């Protein structure tokens, strides 16, 4: 059966302390300087049966993981490395906590887990609030990313062929940082009339979608100019 025919419904916890992974599962997570990440592991001492795997280093194409005292490197552009990683955990189910993981890390891990039929749930801890930038500019309302590191294909997802412009639709999922959208448009240069930006609703907080509009207004204005063309789509 296709993955899309096996939906896993989202479980929401109002307090992170209420979350407990299943015993005898594996829990893969990143390290981050953000204060929200370490709090995930309040349960760690009380659940010794859970195998905690920490991603210590997140380089562009390889990661370093630690399981207990052992550390090992995994190439992200390697189906065999990734498959061996999941197999080596030897657990009936696993969690992939993407809160502290970069997109270029969790995406290949997830792809591999799905292809290995790992019974997997993804965990994400949303922040209560964002800190406003003390030197705000139009596309930088909150103090989020320090800088753009550039654009590169996700490991394992590179597409090297040129497609006919008429057959391409560019669908950016917008966040607060309008700079990212502007940078993507500049680099990818998708056909002007086939860009469909998506703003998720409802936001974690009521006002968040408006900040998304605000942060992206410059790029959106360039794209749409006179036409206001917003459609509500039910994702359900």
């Amino acid at each position: 059966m296709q993955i899309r025919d096996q939906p896993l419904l989202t479980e929401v916890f109002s307090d992170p302390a209420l979350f407990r992974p299943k015993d005898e599962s594996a829990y893969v997570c990143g390290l981050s300087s953000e204060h929200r990440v370490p709090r995930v592991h309040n349960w760690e001492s009380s659940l010794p049966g859970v195998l905690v795997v920490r991603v210590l280093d997140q380089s562009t194409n390889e990661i370093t993981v630690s399981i207990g005292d052992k550390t090992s490197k995994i190439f992200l552009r390697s189906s065999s490395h990734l498959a061996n990683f999941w197999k080596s955990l030897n657990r009936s189910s696993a969690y992939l906590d993407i809160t502290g993981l970069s997109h270029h890390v969790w995406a290949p891990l997830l792809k591999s887990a799905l292809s290995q039929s790992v019974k997997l749930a993804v965990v994400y801890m949303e922040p209560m609030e964002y800190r406003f930038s003390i030197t705000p500019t139009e596309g930088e309302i909150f103090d989020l990313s320090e800088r753009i590191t550039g654009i590169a294909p996700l490991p394992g997802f590179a597409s090297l062929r040129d497609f006919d412009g008429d057959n391409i639709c560019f669908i950016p999922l917008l966040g607060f940082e309008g700079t990212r959208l502007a940078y993507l448009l500049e680099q990818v240069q998708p056909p002007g009339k086939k860009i469909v930006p998506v703003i998720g609703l409802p936001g974690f907080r009521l006002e968040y979608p408006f900040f998304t509009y605000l942060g992206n207004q410059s790029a959106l204005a360039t794209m749409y100019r006179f036409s206001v063309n917003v459609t509500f789509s039910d994702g359900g």
Partner: protein
Amino acid sequence: MISPEEKRNIQEQLSQLFGSYKAEWLKEQMFDLFTEPSYFPELLTARPCLLIGGRGTGKTTVLKSLSYEGQFVLRGRDPKTIPAWKYYGIYYRVNTNRVTAFQGPELAPERWIRVFAHYFNLLICDATLRFLEWYYLHFPTSPPLPDVACTNVAKSLNLSDFKTLRELGDGVESALIEFEAYINNVADNPKVPLSIQGSPLDILFEGITNLPPFKGKHFFVLIDEYENFEDYQQQVINTLIKHCGQLYTFKIGVKELGWRRRTTLNENEQLISPADYVRVPVMEKLESAFEEFALKVCNDRISRVSSGQESNAKTRDIQTLLPNLSDEQEAELLDHTGVIQRNCIEQIGVTGIHSPEIQEMATLEKFFLCFWANDHSKPLQEVLTDRLANPSEWKMRYGNYKHALLFALRRGKAGIRKHYAGWNVFTQLACCNIRYILELVEQSLLLHLHSEKSITEPVSYVNQTLAAQAVGKKNLSELEGLSVHGAQLTKLLLGLGRVFQTLAADPSGHTPEVTQFHVLDAEGSLETNADVNKLLTAAVMHLALIRLTGNKPQDEADTREYDYMVHPIFSAFFVFSYRRKRKMLIGADDILALVSRPKATIRRILEKQNRLGDEPLPEQLRFFEQFYNADS
């Protein structure tokens, strides 16, 4: 009065003709609107060319117009003309999202070179085979590419033994798919057939140029956005450029300072102009001819706007729609309440000098004489007497100061403090950038329409100024997304803009019209100097700053040896002069600190110029008040 429907109709046309600035967004309409720049013939020779220019200078348009698809549209989509073309161009844009896949710890650098060279062989072979398919679609009876040529190309690409053009085309396509899978699993070190750099291209173009329709024809490989290649990838292509021979050649589009590697794969082998390639710097080539070129582009587009108000749109002239303003006229406009004039008359009256020559002077000149007396702590009576005795000397002095004084007339006041109006001014703001001139014209005409004016009437000075401010603001906002340094560039520009705005508003006791700067090395700090170099390079590449070539050093990469100026497109937004005038020195440390600690650094730079940093912000800058006040 213009009807709402008519207004909407014209707005949409303007947006289509002037608003689709990006060649990438215009698609085929780009060719309908194509105006040949003066340097175009230089690109048509069989020699490699390097087209160097900032974003919006028309590189993509020019390269695409050289492509066979572009030529087809430009020549009226008439297949009969194809065999008579002197050249056929194959266009390729360097896509960062693809080329960045060719690096990483999985392979040694030498292996990446081979892998990338093979990828480039596949890409250009694929694009060239598509061209052949297109050609045979129009001329099915034309002699086909011989089987032996197809087989040789296939062998050279290390593919199976494909015999026909169709088989070869399909084979290259599936080789690209396999290659994609290889890159996505490169750490598993799967086997992949590789080819020798350039070899399949040589064989393919030899086969093509041996065919009767293509004998004596040139083939151009058109590579756009060369700066997107990784450094080693530039060396790979440089090697091809250096050794490509007679069968085909390269036409490269690159941003200023985006050609980071000048050597081939042999580090001792440099590409030198004019021996190895023709250098075509767009800004330098267009400098004297830009106004004429821009006029042609804009008049062509404005003549296509159809409206019910005018019988003959063809006669529309953008220069007439955007009238100029002399300095004296502008002073009258800025002093619309007459306060400055009354004040000057009062001061002059007190001196007891009632010369008709002085009484008949324009307000701006009277203001200048009062300013001069005050600035030099001299009695106004003495200044006026000297003015009457030495008119030619004072005319020159007035000429040096009058434009600068316009920035001080409405210092600290609400509303417009300085006008930016006139076709001639707009071309200076655009600084040889065709996209900027289109933006300025479009914004002006849109504001004009919003003011319920007809497209047949000239645009007011106020609307032109507001348009120039809006274009400056728009480009400032866009700067953040242009590069990985975007956020830093925005902050640098906000800092420098504020510095030059304050200098302009307070000319008293200072050199007038300081609009440029030279960066002083940080003593003993190589790291600071390297960081400044990186920042300035990015700023020039993405048009936050322009480098002035007057004192061009020997080594083009020696960033700190140049003089710089905030790009004039931002001058209306910040309110300073767009003219290239006098310069000041800024320390390398301060350049970096403008980004990290803007408030304190702006104050420090201004103090060095004997100004205070407490000048009220112009209205359009209030959005950034928090930025300027932050004690980060």
